[in-house]
């Protein structure tokens, strides 16, 4: 049996990445507090990620999962705490260091966020144009290789508006991984996909980890995806505005006692839990029939 094909490795001089500090994890979040103006979104978020880890950010709607991703990639500044890439604080770094940090991650947005004025091929080539010194021919060769990997070779000349939702997600994934970043961030990759498309994407994520050794941080509500691919994770609570669960989704499913985490992992809704509680209480006080 043939060995699985590996991605072309980019020469280090054109894709330097952040300078690693001794023993520093790939991503280290320390006591992060997120705010929009005066409004607190989350606080006391602390976790770290090593290479080849698939880390899930879980939580109820409005708990700040996507906002956390935006803090990790430097789109939003923390109100307090630190986001360290290879031990380097993004917000304390100068412009050159920030650029180096940015070469260390790729991101798939919730809506794929493909640039609508560019073809799929140009979308995938663009990060290489920005982050590497590869010439046009090399960029296109590499982009076509990655498009083949996500099964979009025949759609390279298409515009994003001509693709289905699942294809857009895969094109966005190709764009995120084309520069072989050590850290991949995925914002609800399975959202809006049917179960088959969702599973295909999960397999792709596992494939990426195998082929590139990248760590993956992903936001998801999809329990099957969470249980299938995540090694570790954090559960954010919208009410208390702090993490209420740490560990892999399987661990949370088996051991977590917090009612919100329990309801989420058991696919129960909060309404179901409340109804069940009410039913139990009503049964306890109601006179027995007969």
């Amino acid at each position, binding site marked *: 049996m043939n060995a699985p094909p590996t991605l072309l490795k980019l020469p280090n001089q054109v894709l330097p990445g952040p300078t690693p500090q001794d023993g520093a994890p790939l991503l280290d979040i320390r006591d992060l507090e997120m705010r929009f103006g005066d409004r607190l979104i989350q606080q006391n978020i602390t976790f770290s990620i090593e290479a080849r880890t698939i880390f899930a950010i879980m939580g109820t709607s409005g708990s700040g999962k996507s906002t956390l991703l935006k803090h990790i990639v430097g789109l939003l500044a923390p109100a307090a705490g630190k986001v360290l890439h290879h031990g380097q604080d993004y917000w304390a770094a100068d412009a050159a260091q920030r650029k180096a940090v940015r070469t260390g991650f790729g*991101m798939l*947005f919730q809506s794929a*966020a*493909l*640039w609508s004025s560019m073809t799929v091929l140009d979308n995938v080539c663009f990060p290489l144009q*920005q982050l590497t010194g590869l010439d046009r021919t090399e960029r296109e060769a590499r982009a076509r290789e990655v498009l083949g990997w996500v099964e979009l070779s025949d759609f390279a000349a298409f515009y994003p508006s001509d693709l289905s939702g699942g294809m857009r997600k895969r094109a966005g994934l190709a764009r995120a991984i084309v520069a072989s970043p050590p850290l991949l961030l995925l914002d609800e990759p399975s959202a809006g996909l049917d179960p088959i498309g969702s599973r295909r994407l999960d397999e792709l994520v596992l494939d990426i980890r195998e082929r590139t050794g990248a760590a993956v941080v992903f936001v998801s509500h999809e329990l099957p995806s969470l249980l299938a691919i995540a090694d570790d994770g954090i559960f954010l609570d919208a009410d208390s505005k702090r993490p209420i669960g740490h560990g892999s989704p399987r661990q949370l499913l088996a051991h977590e006692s917090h009612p919100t985490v329990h309801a989420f992992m058991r696919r129960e809704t909060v309404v179901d839990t409340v109804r069940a509680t009410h039913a139990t209480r009503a049964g306890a006080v109601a006179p027995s029939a007969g």
Partner: protein
Amino acid sequence: MATLDLAGPEGPGTRLFALIRLGAVRSGRALAFLGQLPLSAVVLVRAQAPFPVRDMLRIAVQCSAHALPIVLIVNLLVGAILAFVGAVQLVKFGAGIYVADLVGIAVTREMAAVMTAIVMAGRTGAAFAAELATMQANEEIDALEVLGVDTVAYLVLPRVIALTLMLPLLYFYGCAAGLLGGLLVASGMMDLSPAAYIARTGVALDLAYFALGASKSLFLGGLVAMTACYCGLHAARNATGVGQAATSAVVSGIVGVIALDAVFAVCANALHI
């Protein structure tokens, strides 16, 4: 007797303070945007970062060649209206031939530049704002920022450069259309021969008027593009935000064009142009 409570926690005082704070924040944001433009241009040149030349050419075609029909119609009609109104009055004094002076001077000094800029604020300004606001709503701008792309240099500069360079060209085209409109009305209504009208126009016009109009167009083009891009980049991330951005771009663009034209009128008067 009711008194105005400006100090109450939920009263007009609080609202007034909130309004002032909002105004200050928005003004600061607009100033920061204005300052960011030249900084981004310098960084772009120094770092020799990739500049979307192809995008800029596409935008230049969109805001020039594609706008020719509407610029022609509007300026032709403005020239015709000026000639019509002027003819009615001047003929009373036996000075019908001076319609050529009226149309020529008004079109080249003021109307061609202002009307073309207003047309571009409504057409291209709205398009710029809607395009950028849609990119904002679709997270396309976030995707650029994650890669470290300076969005002002990448998205705003090409639009500002394209419209700033194209508007003077459209101004000359608008002048030709306005003068033609005047000629059509003068020869149709007043039985003036086209040759006499053209000869009189030649006497009335001065190259300084064209220089004034063209330089004004440069600034108006930049103003319309910057206003539109600012509205687009700061739009709310939803469909309503796209609509609001387009509306604000058109309204602010038109008001800005009129205001800047007034400044130019004062300056031209001071310089005896």
